[in-house]
């Protein structure tokens, strides 16, 4: 009887332990979703723009400048150009993968290297691109972090 109880208790402990392990594994995989659950409401457009501007000021402004107009001959402008306003996949690819080689924007050539910014997470990339696409006189729709995730997965699969 005692032996049986011990086995039972041991069994419960083991199963509880292994269950916890599984839970942790699941939690890790879905970490971003779990983290966001407690949030009371989805971020507003203003929140996204503000977060994007912060990313812009930290990682982009030094080259593309405060006004988004870049530097003649070196760093291309982000204003009124198809690179920014056009195909989002292409735009996300530039941010994640970088860009080198002469690039022509509105008839001008630009020469500086843009390093890959794949160290930014999906939300940072979507925030900053949403900010850029709606600032400096630009008026294009938002970029979602799902769109960034899709492009990132495709780039990593290459």
């Amino acid at each position, binding site marked *: 009887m005692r032996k049986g109880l011990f086995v039972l208790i041991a069994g419960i402990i083991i199963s509880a332990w292994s269950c916890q392990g599984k839970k942790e594994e699941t939690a890790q995989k879905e970490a971003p979703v779990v983290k966001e659950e407690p949030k009371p409401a989805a971020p507003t457009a203003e929140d996204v723009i503000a977060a994007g501007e912060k990313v812009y000021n930290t*990682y982009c402004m030094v080259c593309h*400048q*405060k*006004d988004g107009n870049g*530097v*003649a001959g070196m760093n291309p402008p982000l204003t009124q150009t198809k690179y920014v306003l056009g195909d989002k996949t292409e735009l996300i690819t530039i941010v994640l993968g970088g860009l080198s080689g002469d690039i022509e924007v509105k008839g*001008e050539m630009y*020469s*500086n290297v843009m390093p890959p910014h794949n160290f930014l997470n999906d939300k940072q990339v979507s925030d900053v691109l949403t900010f850029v696409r709606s600032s400096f006189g630009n008026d294009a729709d938002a970029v979602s972090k799902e769109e960034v995730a899709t492009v990132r997965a495709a780039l990593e699969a290459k």
Partner: protein
Amino acid sequence: MERSFKNHLKSSFAVSIAITIFAISLFSCDSSSSKQENVNVKADHAFPAADADNGGLTLPENFGAIAVTDSIGRARHIAINNQGDIFVKMRTLADEKGVLYLKDSSGNGKLDLISGFGDFGGTGIAIYKDFLYCSSDSAVYRYKMENGIVKPNTLPDTIVTGFIVQRTHASKPIAFDGNGNMYVTIGAPSNACQESPRTPGSKGHDPCSQLDFQAGIWQFKAEKFNQTLKDDGHRYATGIRNAVAIDWNFKDNALYALQHGRDQLSHLFPEYYTQEQSAELPAEEFLKIADGDDFGWPYCYYDQFQEKKILAPEYGGDGQKIERCEGITPPILAFPGHWAPNDLLFYTGDQFPEKYKNGAFIAFHGSWNRAPFPQQGYFVAFVPFKDGKPEKEWERFAEGFTQVDSVMSTNDAKFRPVGLAEGPDGSLFISDSAKGKIWRVIYYGNKLALKD
């Protein structure tokens, strides 16, 4: 504005005095007097009046400026023949032409665009003997001149080819000594020779193979055709990231240049540098160059506050360590970071007051790399030289190029000084890269009256 208006009043007054003096000197001019000694008292030539607003510039007392042309395109360096005509090297072609020729054909002090030639953009241009030398980003050519001009359909001779094609720091500025040599800057094709260019935390290649044929100044024979970098070039100086401003100083027979220091210390290594430090560091270095010198790029940079060459963070530096940078040749003068010195001119004329003679004018193109702080350095500086050495008390000679109080983004600056040249009469010409405006700066003081 108020300041330039005052300057204008002063200059108008000064102009009348100057004209009077020239009129007097016309009559008193003795036919045996040497023209060479006093180029500015040419009997047939009084200086034209300065523009009411000095072309938008703010200048020292008794100086005035004329905007001789205002929008020829993306100008870079300029050269002037012995009649005062200007050749402008264009970064990108203007109406399919890479060199523009301007002349004051009506005698009103303004230049007229006469012609253009050359199918390549670039930066370097200089007159040597009876030839106009011009560089693209990959070669140096020269055009035969007759009576100071390049005749229509003149084909260029090729002097040097074989420069490695590079996008970053691609300009090939040129200078000549008195011994038949030509010097060409070859910039580094990167910011700091990082394994992953401009990527935070990325280490530097060690050794940096970019130094083999780039990031230095190469010497060639000035008049030998079809030289190549690899077969004929002599690496005169190395470890120079990019020196767009170079000039030979005939007073002490030496090459001088200004290096553009590296970018983005805090962006790439935030653990060692604040944004404030990164806005000021490293120094833009004024270099006196002897054959064989090494100025340390990419391993070292100059910190003007510590007054030392410091180990770059890509090579294990932390803003303090020196290590392999011990003994690396320091600059003769250091300017704050990122101002982008784009031309250097040792003034040899007599038109300006005595203190300017043999001193250095430097055209700072202005920064783009000081964000989040305002951009700086859109002006022409003057560095007096005494006994062959620069004086630390340099002056802001010409300002007002930006036309705004504060430049937050580079494009806020309306004009950006990029090229300098001395006219045969000793006036100073300044070119702008944004619109292609060119100013002629003249001294309207009464130096001659005082002397006499």
